């Protein structure tokens, strides 16, 4: 019964390709997030959705496009992948009293 699940866990792809990462939460939370963790372990927020509505959109290249078909799902599509996109991407959801639950991450390697 994984609370926040991401697929795939690993993704290796060539520069210029388009790829998607999927995230699903079964906690009933309204708010979901995408974070990027770089090679130095620094975590930076990318996007946040509340009940399918985009509420936080950080300075992220427009090659990154989030989509939330319903409040339990938040997917991330990346166009024209670049070497610098290599990172671990975490999905998270927020529950009551600021209880954040993170997925186990998707390690994206662009070659």
């Amino acid at each position: 019964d994984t609370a926040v699940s991401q697929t795939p866990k690993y993704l290796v792809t060539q520069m210029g390709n388009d790829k998607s990462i999927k995230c699903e939460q079964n906690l009933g939370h309204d708010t979901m997030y995408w974070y990027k963790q770089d090679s130095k372990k620094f975590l930076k927020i990318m996007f946040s959705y509340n009940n399918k509505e985009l509420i936080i959109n950080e300075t992220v290249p427009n090659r990154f496009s989030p989509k939330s078909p319903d409040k339990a799902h938040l997917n991330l599509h990346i166009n024209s992948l670049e070497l610098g996109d290599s990172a671990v991407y975490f999905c998270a959801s927020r529950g009551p009293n600021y209880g954040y639950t993170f997925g186990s991450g998707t390690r994206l390697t662009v070659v």
Partner: protein
Amino acid sequence: AQSVTQLDSQVPVFEEAPVELRCNYSSSVSVYLFWYVQYPNQGLQLLLKYLSGSTLVKGINGFEAEFNKSQTSFHLRKPSVHISDTAEYFCAVIPNSGGYQKVTFGTGTKLQVIP
């Protein structure tokens, strides 16, 4: 805007010894504070959080942290560490003004427990 400083990027400590991981923050508004742990190849797991009330907060796995408003610190402590505590630890803050606020993370401290 908020910022979080974790001064120690790595902390080696012998098994069964006490440990303190330091966290200082800067914010023009009041904040909530968190500590997360990340085991290798895993996501972040909440250790503890301070929202209000007692400034000494107890979390999972025997960890505790103390909120010091005057020193803007939220140091994490454990009296006796185990090998299984080897992981990356992140301090984080969020403005307590409600609404859709962003969590700001520190750069992490790698705790290495030596047998």
